[in-house]
């Protein structure tokens, strides 16, 4: 900058330098709150704080709101308020409804805005300011993976909420992260046999895929399993997230010679793309002498509500459904319904269960130290939480349980009764070796 003519005098540099140095030196005492603690944010009072990090604004806000309801209900049950929900059906009886390790559960909430940046900022606030010892939440695999690696670096446990990408417990898995929700690999394994029964082994599929980690993962898994059946993949087109108008992507499907459209979309994207595909008359077409079909591999009640009439008869998979008949599901649906006046979604269920599982592991470990809690969760076999006998696999921190194949109901009895369970795929059929998805857990980080 030759244009700046006024040079600095030696004195002013010295003066400001000295002042700056002085101030820099002072606050180093504030750099750490607790050197003596055995792990980060060790609760010292009579409460323990959880961080609920969900999308409250943005494309997945509906899911986020339902997740938050479930978390609040879980905290009530852990503290002994309400009817106890699934605590009474849970196979582990460590929790007594009087908090965890003698401490009442408190919580803080945050808005992820469905953005990795905002989610990490919010999670950091919970860890650094509010002293949260566990972060949970999600509703987008991108966000979940970003927050999971943050929790690993900071040294707290992350209990993933709704995240379906293989990468969360695959290529991007972390020791401090745990997931109850299923993944696209399991969706593929469960859905493919049903697709074969309904549509036959000789089909030509066209994929529309949301262009991010979950979409890629979903597309890969569905391709893999349908091609094993003998299907042919005509094309797989990536669409930007939140596109709104999918007509430019749907028109080419008509002339591609494909007779099945696979929509690897979620949330509002799925509502829009499915509605438009139906409006374009795809489902009334006959291609290659066969009825044209649409498949939505990951279904949710909230999406079915959004798409209305158009979901009728469309196949997909689901982690859980409130209409299941086991005791755990009924207890949860009843207490959620009493509290909020409508049945819970699968997002609410997985978040509720994750909170309970974490609390139970802390109680059994007798501490909140991440490495100990993690060991209590690893290889943990349980039942009574709505999915039948379930295993938290030690090798990748992924839960293994039955997967539901669902279909849009032809004659729904109410606005919450939109999906029917076609088949409950047993756990053995969706299990895969942990090495299949790559990645490395690393070791636990206690944050000190």
């Amino acid at each position: 900058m030759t244009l700046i003519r006024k040079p600095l005098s030696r004195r002013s540099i010295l003066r400001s330098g000295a002042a700056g140095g002085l101030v820099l030196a002072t606050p180093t005492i504030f750099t750490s709150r607790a050197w003596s603690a055995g792990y980060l944010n060790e609760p010292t009072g009579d409460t323990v704080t959880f961080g609920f990090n969900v999308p409250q604004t943005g494309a997945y806000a509906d899911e986020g709101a339902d997740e938050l309801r479930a978390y609040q209900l879980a905290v009530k049950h852990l503290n002994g308020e309400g009817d106890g929900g699934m605590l009474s059906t849970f196979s582990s009886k460590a929790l007594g409804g009087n908090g965890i390790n003698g401490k009442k559960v408190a919580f803080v909430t945050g808005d992820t805005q469905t953005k990795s940046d905002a989610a990490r900022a919010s999670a950091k606030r919970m860890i650094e300011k509010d002293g949260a010892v566990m972060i949970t939440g999600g509703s987008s695999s991108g966000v979940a993976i970003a927050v999971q690696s943050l929790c690993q670096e900071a040294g707290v446990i992350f209990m993933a909420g709704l995240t379906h990408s293989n990468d969360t417990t695959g290529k991007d898995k972390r020791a401090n992260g745990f997931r109850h929700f299923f993944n696209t690999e399991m969706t593929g394994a469960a859905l493919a046999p049903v697709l074969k029964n309904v549509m036959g082994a000789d089909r030509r599929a066209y994929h529309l895929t949301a262009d991010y980690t979950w979409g890629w993962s979903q597309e890969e898994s569905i391709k893999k399993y349908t091609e094993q059946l003998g299907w042919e993949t005509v094309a797989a087109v990536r669409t930007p997230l939140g596109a709104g108008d999918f007509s430019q992507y749907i028109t080419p499907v008509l002339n591609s010679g494909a007779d099945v459209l696979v929509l690897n979309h979620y949330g509002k994207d799925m509502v829009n793309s499915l509605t438009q595909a139906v409006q374009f008359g795809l489902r009334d077409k006959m291609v290659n002498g066969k009825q044209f079909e649409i498949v939505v591999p990951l279904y949710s009640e909230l999406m079915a509500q959004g798409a209305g009439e158009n979901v009728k008869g469309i196949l997909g998979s689901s982690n859980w459904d409130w209409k299941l008949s086991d005791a755990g599901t009924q207890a949860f649906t009843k207490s959620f319904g009493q509290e909020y006046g409508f049945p819970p979604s699968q997002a609410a269920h997985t978040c509720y269960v994750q909170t309970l599982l974490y609390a139970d592991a802390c109680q059994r470990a007798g501490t909140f130290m991440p490495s100990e809690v993690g060991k209590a969760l690893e290889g943990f076999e349980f039942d009574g939480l709505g999915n039948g006998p379930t295993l938290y696999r030690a090798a990748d921190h992924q839960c293994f349980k039955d997967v539901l194949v669902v279909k849009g109901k032809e004659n729904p009895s109410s606005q919450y009764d939109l999906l029917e369970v076609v088949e409950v795929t047993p756990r053995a059929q969706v299990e895969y070796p942990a090495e299949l998805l790559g990645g490395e857990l690393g070791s636990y980080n206690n944050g000190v």
Partner: protein
Amino acid sequence: MSATPTPTRDLLMFVVFAAAVLTMPMWLAPIGAGYPDLLQKFAIYGLFATGFNLLFGLTGYLSFGHAAFLGVGSYTAVWTFKLLGMNPIPAAIMAIAASGIFAVAIGFVSLRRSGIYFSILTLAFAQMSYNLAYSVLTPITNGETGLRVLRSDPRLFDAAGQGDGPLVSTLFGIEMSGYPGFYFCAVLLIIGFFIAQRIFRSPFGTMLRAVKSNQNRMNYTGLNPRPYTLAAFVISGMYAGLAGALLCITDPLAGAERMQWTASGEVVLMTILGGMGTLLGPILGAGLIKYFENIFSAFNEQTLHRIFGFLPDFLETPVVAITSLFVGEGWQLTLGVLFMLIVIFLPGGIMEGFSRIGRMFRRSSGAKGSHQTAPAE
């Protein structure tokens, strides 16, 4: 602030500013903002807004695409981490260089127009970069998932040194997260503020103000304003690039949403809220917006019940019900109301508010004293 700037005043202001920034962990703690992540954000976005103000405040060119430079800075920084190593200094330098080059290219085209056309051009460029980062450039940006440093990256200079430890940026052994990260950002903010102050007082700054007040007149006197505006645009872009790099230095993840038009709009809000064309204003504005985003959005009904617990029950419930609309997910609503109030009643932003209060004091104390004005020299 409205008083004539003299070198002594400037120095005093700089020293007070530096002291205030470095002691932030202490004086922000009572309002719940004294934790490292938010402090880092204050410093980083303060720097971003300062740079933006060099362009907008001085030349009057309203860029609606500044977030693009933030994004370019972020991606460059993460790639530097991936290829060279986790030291923040090369990352910052590379980010400044890359965003500077990017700014030359965009500025060269956009600055051919002024006023609303310039704004729209920059907006278009930024939106283009955002969409590129999401689609065509996915191999470089990793799309929606965001670019991260992985253990398998080459990291020429320190790949051997790091074993199982967390992948965060380290400056000669000091991890750039938490308070050390904040001090790193704070020092850069102070340096950035110092440079901005110099530019404000320099003949170059006067030229930029001349561009703002009347470009035609400048042309008639035979001066070509384009080199000046381009220089301001590039400097401002470099500030944004550095801010983007700092975001990644404190937290090694770069996502495309940083380039979205809402992020560009945010920096405009920060500058206007604080007071455009003032040195401190944009930094205050940035702090205010980040405070709202992080603290107000975290209030839930429980917190409100605790705050209004002193009220009798029949009052407490409606009060909580009404205020809950404005906190939590409604934080943007509060911000919107505040923004409207400030633009209507204090068009010069928070800084105008301060100077009005300052003037009130001077008038009331001056009324008692003599009516004598300072003698002319």
